[in-house]
């Protein structure tokens, strides 16, 4: 179990993590979601004792990372930036880590095979693609067979086949009872991988719930209605408290009124219905809804969501 209590971290005049508290339970994949610059990587670095928090503390199974005697056997981590020596081979990079924990060479071969790098194990990391680098990072995380995994953007740079492989690996690790904490800025990826979500924006906790609850809670539901007599039906819907969010020919999208009620209104007025479809919001939409205005960078094009007060000075680099 991972526990963060009142974590804060300031870089210069930027508050990267702002009094963040959460716990991550074993046996499920927990997604750590937030727009770029929200403080995900910083939070993970605080959990791993790489950076010192300004307030609060982070523990893993009740202990600070720094106090773990053989940390790689307890926690496996994949960091956002590459954390290996580019002049050393993949095998030797892992061997160096294995030796600090008293792990046998056989284990190095094993994790290299697990991530599919056997054919390039003796090659220097310098020539590795982004995807190969990510696989090596995963191998390093799994080296000590840890109960807790903290992975920062593990699908970054992977091709679709490798993304599927990673997704299944994460689920399998969680099914084995491990604590799996995975960050991403890709909402749809988390929708299919994570059972539980911790969402942050500008270093603050915005949601901590199951993935289902998150979608349910964060977005208004709407109903798509199609009818040859849509104008008359729209009047009835509005009179009943519904909101026409969008109208397009014989189609309208209705908010604030549920499908059975709309069906009832149509039936009692004798209006023919061609379609009556409740629309589930995607995780992407739910996420946009929730973190609206908290993104570090927002495009100015189609920028209805971009508040003019968004600071332009801070950079992701300062948070990394």
């Amino acid at each position, binding site marked *: 179990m991972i526990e963060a209590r009142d974590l804060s971290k300031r870089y210069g005049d930027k508050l990267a993590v702002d009094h963040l508290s959460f716990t991550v339970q074993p046996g499920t994949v927990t997604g750590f979601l937030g727009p770029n610059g929200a403080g995900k990587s910083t939070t993970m*670095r605080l959990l*791993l*004792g*790489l*950076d*010192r928090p300004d307030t609060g503390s982070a523990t893993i199974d009740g202990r600070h*990372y*720094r106090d*773990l*005697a*053989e*940390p*790689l*056997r*307890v*926690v496996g*981590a994949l*960091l956002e*930036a*590459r*954390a*290996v*020596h*580019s*002049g*050393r*081979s993949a095998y*030797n*990079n892992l*061997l*160096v*880590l294995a*030796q*600090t*924990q*008293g*792990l*046998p060479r*056989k*284990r190095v071969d*094993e994790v290299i*095979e*697990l991530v599919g790098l056997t054919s390039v194990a003796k090659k220097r990391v310098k020539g590795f693609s982004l995807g190969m680098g990510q696989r090596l990072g995963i191998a*390093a995380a*799994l080296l*000590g*067979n*840890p*109960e807790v995994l903290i992975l920062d953007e593990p699908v970054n740079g992977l091709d679709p086949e490798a993304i599927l492989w990673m997704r299944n690996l994460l689920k*399998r*690790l969680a099914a*084995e009872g491990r604590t799996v904490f995975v960050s991403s800025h890709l909402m749809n990826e988390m929708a299919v991988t994570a059972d539980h979500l911790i969402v942050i924006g500008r270093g603050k906790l915005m949601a901590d719930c199951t993935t289902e609850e998150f979608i349910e809670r964060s977005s208004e539901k709407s109903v798509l209605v199609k009818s040859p007599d849509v104008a008359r039906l729209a009047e009835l819907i509005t009179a009943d408290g519904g909101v026409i969010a969008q109208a397009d020919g014989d189609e309208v999208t209705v908010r604030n009124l549920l499908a059975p009620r709309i069906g009832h209104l149509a039936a009692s007025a004798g209006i023919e219905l061609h379609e009556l479809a409740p629309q589930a919001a995607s995780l992407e939409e739910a996420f946009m809804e929730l973190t609206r205005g908290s993104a570090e960078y927002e495009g100015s094009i189609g920028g209805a969501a971009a508040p003019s007060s968004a600071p332009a000075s801070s950079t992701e680099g300062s948070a990394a």
Partner: protein
Amino acid sequence: MTTATAVPPAVTDAPPAGVKTARLLRSEWTKLVTVRSTLWSLILLVIITPGLSALFTWANDHNWSQANASDRANIVADPTSLILGTGFLFGQLTICVLGVLVMAGEYSTGSIRSSLLAVPKRTPMLAAKCAIFAAVVFVFGELVAFPSFFIGAKILHNHAPVSLGDSGVLRAVIGGGLYLAVLGLFALAIGALVRHTAGAITGVIAFVLVLAPLAQLLPGSLGKHVHAYLPSEAGHLIAQAHQSDTDLLSPWQGFGVFCLWTAVLLGLAAWLLNRRDA
């Protein structure tokens, strides 16, 4: 399940200190011998030091009749300094560079993060790195000091005969390796403090080659004292067989001053390593 076969379950009790130390030393040894910069630096050391020692000694021997009397007298008084001097002056630069790379290379590649995840208390990692690096440089230092001396002594034997048994000579030759080992740690400490390869190499070279002539420009005894206590100036006295009249420090005093500089910088490096975000 392929994720876990060869690994015994995680232990909650800390392994004995001896076991931990052995693991860290083994890991730092692997780090040192699995990068090419180590190989190239040590090959250069082995070529440059005896090579330049032989060349410079031969040049002096060859021009013996043209040299003035006081120069000849200096060489006869302490042939060891002539033999080891030039070779080590240039050979030491390979150790300066390698010492910086051993530590700053971890920062430039990002491998420092993996290293600190594996050893989150940090200081033991630095200590193990120092121990392995100093030991390797000491061995290679002796591997170049003895051949350099024997080649030089053979070249000089007609004009200024010298042997290992002469007073101070054995200490000076062994001192060549000791000097390089401490110089390696000095460079490693600068690498740990600066954390950027190019900047740290510049800093070490400045200490070793630039500050000494600058200090001599300072007026009077101030310049003389500053010069004498500079790390490499004080340190290399250990590789001279005789203390000359102008030296303020004895060989072992000088070496002590050098060790003190290095210890202070390493202490500062360890303190900052623990304080700074990685």
